[in-house]
């Protein structure tokens, strides 16, 4: 399973006075099993791009091949696309509606027309996958759960559809640090268990550095940069010019580097930064 997006352009309200080019000539590919982080400031086209990947929006021009199917072709059944590509929106907990957690998670699989046993099996597996205890939580109302739990139930609803590609739009927004960390661990676990493609949007550069194999940078409807986290976050000035930043820890290392210290600025997490600083400080102290 892989994804190829070629020359994707999307124009809102074409021919109207409020015509707006939301995406222009965006091309990229995602290899099987890759985790892709998408960054860009508000209004850069990230969400518009994601909504094309499961057929919610149709491109004005360009093609999107998911697996072996060009989903932009006429006659492709939307239901088939949605089965393959699961999209979790921002603040998905606002979409919970059922009386119990189990019913809410079962809603998607039911619509696929699966039989009762299969549905139960999937609901059980999905709830476990997001890190919740099925027996404890299945009969509770989703509305009495904590913010982080609600979000995980909503994500379970998409996972229960067993998509081959999972897309998450700002999965950690608005959560406290503990719940935030649980969501990150959940994404890592889902990826480890399924080995499928995961694409996520985030404003948290630390999360992007930690989870992604590849980072896509959007600005004003264009894909302006892509590469590994190390490649992308070494381009501090280019990111800054489009209103983005590097992970906080990288920023600290880059500041030290810019002040003339012999420090490798391209460190993406605390462990790496710690080692580099210990190396630098010990050596410098010995020289003293």
């Amino acid at each position, binding site marked *: 399973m892989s994804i190829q997006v070629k020359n994707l352009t999307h124009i809102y309200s074409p021919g109207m006075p409020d015509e707006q080019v939301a995406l222009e000539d965006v091309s990229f590919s995602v290899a099987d099993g890759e985790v892709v982080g998408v960054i860009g400031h508000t209004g850069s086209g990230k969400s518009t791009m994601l909504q094309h990947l499961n057929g919610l929006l149709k491109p004005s021009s360009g093609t999107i091949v998911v697996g072996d199917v060009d989903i932009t072709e006429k006659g492709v059944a939307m239901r088939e696309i949605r089965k393959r590509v699961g999209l979790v929106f921002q603040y998905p907990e606002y979409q919970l509606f059922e009386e119990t957690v189990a019913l809410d998670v079962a809603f998607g699989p039911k619509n696929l027309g699966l039989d009762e046993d299969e549905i139960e099996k999937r609901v059980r597996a999905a709830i476990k996958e997001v890190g919740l205890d099925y027996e404890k939580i299945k009969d509770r109302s989703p509305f009495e759960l904590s913010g982080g739990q609600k979000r995980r139930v909503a994500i379970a609803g998409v996972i229960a559809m067993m998509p081959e590609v999972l897309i998450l739009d700002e999965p950690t927004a608005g*959560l406290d640090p503990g719940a935030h960390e649980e969501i990150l661990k959940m994404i890592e676990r889902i990826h480890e268990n399924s080995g499928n493609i995961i694409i996520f949007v985030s404003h948290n550069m630390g999360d992007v550095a930690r989870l992604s194999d590849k980072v896509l940078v959007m600005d004003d409807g264009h894909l302006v940069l892509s590469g590994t986290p190390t490649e992308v976050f070494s381009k501090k000035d280019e990111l800054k010019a489009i209103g983005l930043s590097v992970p906080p820890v990288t920023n600290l290392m880059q500041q030290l580097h810019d002040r003339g210290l012999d420090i490798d600025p391209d460190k993406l997490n605390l462990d790496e930064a710690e080692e580099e600083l210990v190396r630098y400080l010990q050596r*410098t102290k010995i020289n003293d």
Partner: protein
Amino acid sequence: MENMIRIENLTFEYMHDEEGEEQVVLKNLNLEIKKGSFTAILGRNGSGKSTLAKNMNGLLLPTGGAVYVKNWNTSDQETIWDVRQAAGMVFQNPDNQLVSSIVEDDVAFGPENLGVDPEDIRKRVDKALSSVNMGKFRRKSPHMLSGGQKQRIAIAGVVAMKPECIIFDEATAMLDPKGREEIMYIVKELNEEGITVICITHFMDEAVQADRIIVLEQGEILLDGTPREVFAQEEVLIEANLELPLAVDLAGRLRKRGINVPEDIINVEGLVDYICRYK
């Protein structure tokens, strides 16, 4: 120094509809907020932060104890409007707080309701918009603005009421990093101009800018002190679903490796300056 807000034995309970059970959100809380101070309130989702904030300007009223804004008891109906004018509030979702289709009308909404003289309203609106660097957007429609810009308009709407205190209830939670930075810049400026600031947040790098941090857990005060004092309590914070700011975390790791980083380094600038001494 004089108190802006005084909270005495505040208890707040929600009535649970179905079983008629009471859910205690805040328990016997005592707190004083000094005039002109900058306080950050931290705590996991559901710890009672927002409930506390809404009790601070009478949007919610105590079920036990009392809250005083200046010397007005928030439970006193006679002075509730004085309370709300003195202590303004900015909420999380930028889309839920704007009422007009033109930016300057939106900012004027508050002072209009206070019955302020139209000439004075004009002055207040211009001043408020320039204080959030949004003067040139005054004739725009709010829905054309970014999230950070909308939040700045919401702040201008509060500033135009000439409050002595502004409570930010996770006002940056839905913004991108640039939007967050814009808002924190304005928050600090307002505080420097003398406005008492209370910031409820999940972001440690915002809390570290305050002069006092209060950590709530299950409706009670778990920690209360300067950022340095509070962030020295690593285990307590992690237990409360919180984390350390980057510089505090990294400084702690370096100390464990035998590097004597001074304890008073709590922000990135401080840590960078310290390491640069070893050039």
